[in-house]
């Protein structure tokens, strides 16, 4: 038969060990939902409400998924992503309390539609030009959104908007938290989360909502990326001129990436507004955009798992080490520099980067087999 070292037709990894993979994923999902209830030592942030931190992490993960479509897949450097995030939040607040009484859930589709539209309006003229120019225009866009909100009384001015609507509460059951004492685990009956009540104290339901949206967007991301749309993005990023000559309408695909990114950005803005109570323009500074881009780059642009990890870390680490006061930012900076030095591709680089390395190794041992193949053809 075949020599064992000689691979036949390469099988996609997804086909191997499928049941094990599904069970593993299911366990991970349950664990993620249960995380704020477990009060795990070391992992849980000592100085801030862990559920609140997790909620913020989930919204940032959402942001990273959206920004990854723009930066990672389509290769468009967007430095004003916070603009979309702000628009999403503001649409929810404006329709829900400032100028209407829309229920929260209805404001979400509106927020997403308005954000997407703004993405198209911003993208249509700017995506025809390349590279640095786009970065500058988007940077300006982010600031324009913030300053417009700040200078518009209609949008609440610098004070922003209070009493942003919350998702509808349906109290079905209570879930107790765990408590760790001297190495033993106890059920803490005094500390229960009311499922699903969206109040002012307990952020667990908000986290659950955000996490659920993350999963939905993640699935959509997988489906789109593995279709011809994903291939067209990749080709456009690699070589726009050649992609065009191969029949890819690159401008349309770039605009699509931009609109999809805006969609997810607006969605995360609306999700973040739910737990925020009030929103104000200066929470949408340029620095937030920079953190967003950092999350994507740290994680490994182009790899959805990487950027999610990156986003989770940029929120989690500063909160975890809040006890270090000002030093935590310093630590964060040092961590970033170390990462840039030792893993310039990000924590989890895209599949291809890793595969390229593995292939280089395989190639040498395959060389002999190839010559036989060449003679035959």
């Amino acid at each position, binding site marked *: 038969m075949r020599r064992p070292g000689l691979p036949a037709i390469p099988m996609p990894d997804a086909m191997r060990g499928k049941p094990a993979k599904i069970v593993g994923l299911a366990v991970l999902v349950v664990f993620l939902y249960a995380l704020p209830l477990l009060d795990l030592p070391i992992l849980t942030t000592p100085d801030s409400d862990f559920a609140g931190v997790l909620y913020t992490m989930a919204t940032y993960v959402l942001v990273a998924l959206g920004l990854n479509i723009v930066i990672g897949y389509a290769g468009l450097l967007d430095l004003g992503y916070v603009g979309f995030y702000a628009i999403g939040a503001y649409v929810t607040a404006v329709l829900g309390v400032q100028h209407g009484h829309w229920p929260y859930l209805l404001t979400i589709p509106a927020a997403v539609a308005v954000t997407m539209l703004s993405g198209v309006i911003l993208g249509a003229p700017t995506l025809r030009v390349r590279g640095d120019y786009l970065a500058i225009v988007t940077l300006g866009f982010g600031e324009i959104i913030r300053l417009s909100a700040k200078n518009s009384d209609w949008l609440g001015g610098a004070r922003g908007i209070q009493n942003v609507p919350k998702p509808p509460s349906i109290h079905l059951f209570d879930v107790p938290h765990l408590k760790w004492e001297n190495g033993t685990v106890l059920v803490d009956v005094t500390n229960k989360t009311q499922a699903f009540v969206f109040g002012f104290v307990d952020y667990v339901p908000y986290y659950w909502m955000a996490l659920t949206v993350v999963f939905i967007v993640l699935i959509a991301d997988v489906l*789109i990326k593995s279709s011809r749309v994903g291939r067209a993005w990749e080709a456009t990023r690699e070589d726009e001129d050649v992609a065009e000559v*191969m029949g890819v309408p690159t401008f349309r695909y770039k605009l699509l990436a931009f609109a999809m990114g805006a969609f997810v950005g607006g969605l995360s803005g609306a999700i973040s507004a739910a737990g925020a109570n009030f929103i104000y323009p200066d929470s949408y500074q340029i620095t937030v955009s920079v953190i967003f881009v950092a999350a994507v780059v740290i994680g490994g642009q182009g790899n959805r798992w990487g950027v999610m990890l990156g986003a989770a870390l940029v929120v989690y680490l500063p909160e975890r080490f809040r006890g270090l006061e000002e030093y935590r930012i310093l630590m964060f900076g040092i961590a970033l520099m170390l990462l840039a030095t030792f893993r310039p591709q990000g924590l989890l680089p895209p599949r291809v980067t890793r595969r390229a390395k593995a292939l280089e190794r395989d190639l040498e041992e395959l060389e002999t087999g190839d010559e036989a193949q060449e003679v035959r053809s």
Partner: protein
Amino acid sequence: MSTVDSTVEPAGEPTGRAMLEVDHVTLRFGGVAALDDVSFEIREGEILGLIGPNGAGKTTCFNVMTGVYKPTRGEVRFRGQPLTRMKRFQITRLGIARTFQNIRLFKTMTALDNVMVGGDTNSSVGLLNALFRTPRQRREEAETHRRAVELLDFVGIGRRAEELAANLSYGDQRRLEIARAMATNPKLLCLDEPAAGFNPAEKQRLMELIRKVRDQGFTVLLIEHDMRLVMGVTDRIVVLEFGRKIAEGPPAQIRDDPAVIAAYLGVDEDDAS
């Protein structure tokens, strides 16, 4: 049916109808005329050779035909339709595909994905179909995949399908360029020095491949430096020098054309032999 089975019957002799007409095309880069009032036609089903010394304007001619450059004067017509106002991707979808002299693959994509990008020109499903994995989307995806695999086999790199384009050997990258161009389902396939850097045996194999491509119904435009090779494989030849057409005709006639001999002798004796 499949157009790449190696057993498909020949599509027959060239019909003689013009498929692509280059009509008095001039292209200037600043003061330099890279193409100077060039006219010729490519006929359905033929292999047309485009030759000339370095810098004669061959690649530029490709670029005008595929919409990369717009001609300063004149126009290019494909089956009677002017290409002047068309976008590049529309020209490709109309049926003109090309390879690049300086290999330009999507390096971080696999060989298979490279070809599938070309194959996507035949697919019309969009975002929503992808999102809901509709039967139509799955059918088209499977068809694009099947055809891509077939094309990789056809050019002889089927076993390399899952490798990154950047990791392929030089020769395999050239073959992948051809497979990717063929995947766009063109009527006219333009090959820009596909055998550059090959040794004589490899060149010979490639010319056989090109003949096979033609036999399946593609019309081929071939740029190649090696005169002997061009003579062996083409039906007709157009010769450019300094952006002007200096000769056109069947290989036997071109070989004896004094202007062509002069052009080549002036450059490189070996190539004219």
